């Protein structure tokens, strides 16, 4: 295939499908109990320097609890997959946990504006960037999930996004048209938050899948955090509901409200007041340091964070908000 152009951005990961196959050949397939506390899962499976993928979209079904734990345990020099990221990027940037980043969407909090601290960190020169788009990164993960070293797409061509990516443009051997080729991306480790999982890692969630089906399959190691555990018999009663099979998962952690202050479809809506507090606190670095000392470093685990944010009383309000129920004042 004739390569016409290539982006000058850094390629952070290997793209050899046979090397990936060697890894997956040895990945354990046994049906064993993988239930463990989140602290242990992060300690065991997220290492300094790893390439990290985070599931969900923006602050929706995002494994916030795991992001906190990664920061609390002081992980450094990660390579972050900045795919549809908002609050996850904000948390990891607060901990300066990554120094390289594949970007599709970062810093922004969608309609809420830009995160001041995430922006400062991203403008500091401490982070090496490679530019992509949401679909380009989705295709990279899809290629990895398929076990092939690249996939073609018809986006990104003709732009500076291409020039700062590590994609290549090549002529299609069939039609003669130009395509953008995206290298496969096998993250070292990913965390995906779901509604329900069993102790083996069979997992299911409601609502949009975003890129999580691809992410789960592309990742070498996978931590599942779930709102609630269910019995394996329940999984077997309705196999059509399973979206992630157990042999992809390395750890299962039950973390109720694990996507707070984000939105968990059918469970609870986002806590906009608390997300605002993050953004407000970030404006002044000194104030933000105190904020982090209180809300992340000053608590033992995510339950401590939830308690600081209003505990069950607040969670109950957010559950009603999810369904737009009238609430007693």
């Amino acid at each position, binding site marked *: 295939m004739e390569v016409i152009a290539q982006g000058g951005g850094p390629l952070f990961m290997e793209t050899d499908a046979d090397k990936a196959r060697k890894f997956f050949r040895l990945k354990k397939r046994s049906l064993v109990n993988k239930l463990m506390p989140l602290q242990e899962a992060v300690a065991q499976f997220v290492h300094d320097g790893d390439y990290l993928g985070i599931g969900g979209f923006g602050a929706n079904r995002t494994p916030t609890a795991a992001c906190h734990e990664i920061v609390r345990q002081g992980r450094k020099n990660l390579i972050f997959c900045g795919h549809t990221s908002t609050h996850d990027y904000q948390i990891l940037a607060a901990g300066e946990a990554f120094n390289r980043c594949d970007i599709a969407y970062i*810093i922004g909090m969608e309609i809420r504006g830009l995160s001041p601290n995430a922006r400062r960190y991203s403008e500091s020169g401490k982070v090496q960037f490679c530019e992509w788009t949401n679909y380009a990164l989705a295709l990279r993960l899809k290629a990895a999930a398929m076990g092939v070293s690249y996939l073609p797409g018809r986006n990104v061509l003709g732009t*500076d996004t291409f020039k700062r990516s590590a994609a290549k443009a090549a002529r299609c051997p069939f039609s003669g048209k130009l395509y953008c080729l995206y290298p496969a991306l096998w993250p070292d480790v990913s965390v995906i938050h779901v509604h329900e999982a069993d102790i083996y890692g069979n997992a299911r969630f409601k609502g949009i899948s975003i890129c999580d089906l691809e992410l789960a399959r592309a990742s070498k190691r996978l931590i599942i955090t779930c709102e609630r555990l269910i019995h394996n018999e329940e999984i077997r009663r309705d196999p059509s509901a399973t979206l992630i099979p157990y042999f992809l998962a390395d750890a299962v952690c039950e973390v109720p409200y694990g996507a707070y202050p984000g939105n968990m479809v059918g469970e609870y809506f986002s806590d906009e007041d608390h997300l605002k507090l993050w953004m407000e606190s970030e404006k002044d670095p000194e104030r933000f340091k105190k904020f982090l000392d209180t809300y992340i470093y000053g608590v033992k685990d995510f339950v401590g964070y939830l308690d600081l944010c209003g505990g069950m009383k607040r969670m109950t309000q957010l559950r009603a908000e999810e369904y737009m129920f009238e609430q007693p004042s």
Partner: protein
Amino acid sequence: MADYNAMELMICIAARELEDGATVGVGTGAPCAAAMLSQKTCSPNLLIMFEAGGVAPLLPEMPISVGDSRTTWKAVMASGMCEIMETACRGMLDYTFLGGAQIDMYGNLNSTRVGDNHQKPKVRLPGSGGANDFASFAWRMMVMTPQDTKRFVERCSFVTTPGWIKGGDSRAKCGLPLEAGPYKIITNMAVMDFEPESKRMRIISINHGYSEKDIQDNCGFELLKAPKIVETPPPTAEELRILREEVDPLKLIIGR
């Protein structure tokens, strides 16, 4: 001046561009408001898609995020990003609305950085998100933006999202899908389209209260003029009522 603000004006103009039965890929904010208004006025069967996976929701209120639970409220499908983008690339996405910090005369958009140092940018912005993808695939890409010389620039510091690239047939030569591209640019002052040969931005209609000179003075490049320039029909009382009472009662978008 009539009793509406610039955002309300742009949303009302944009809503009329979406015909019944068309598909539109939107983000949160003004694009979503335009699609909702369109559904409640001229296009009840407008099919709204969100890049995160929501297909044809009956939006109960303004979503905060492209992936929040409102985007699948009474939807026909909760899918994923590949499903949406594959649908768009296949040729089934008619419209998309995008924005950016900068736009040039060919409708190329910048939402990545200001300044030239990429690893240590003067201002770092979110990046493409799904904008480049939607702009590459949608048959007609539209932009809603306030107009001034900071946004309408001779050269974007970074082209995140493709417009007509360098004009003429340069977009097709890059390999982007044929015949798709920027369609209309809706600002507080005017509506622009693109001259068919050169693909340069040109004024086609002027919003009430503005002159050709105002529009050119607030643009950092020379605008072409359509053979016949009309006055943009202002928002109707009914459009404004629906926008204020049903689409955005909390004034999340129009209140700004």
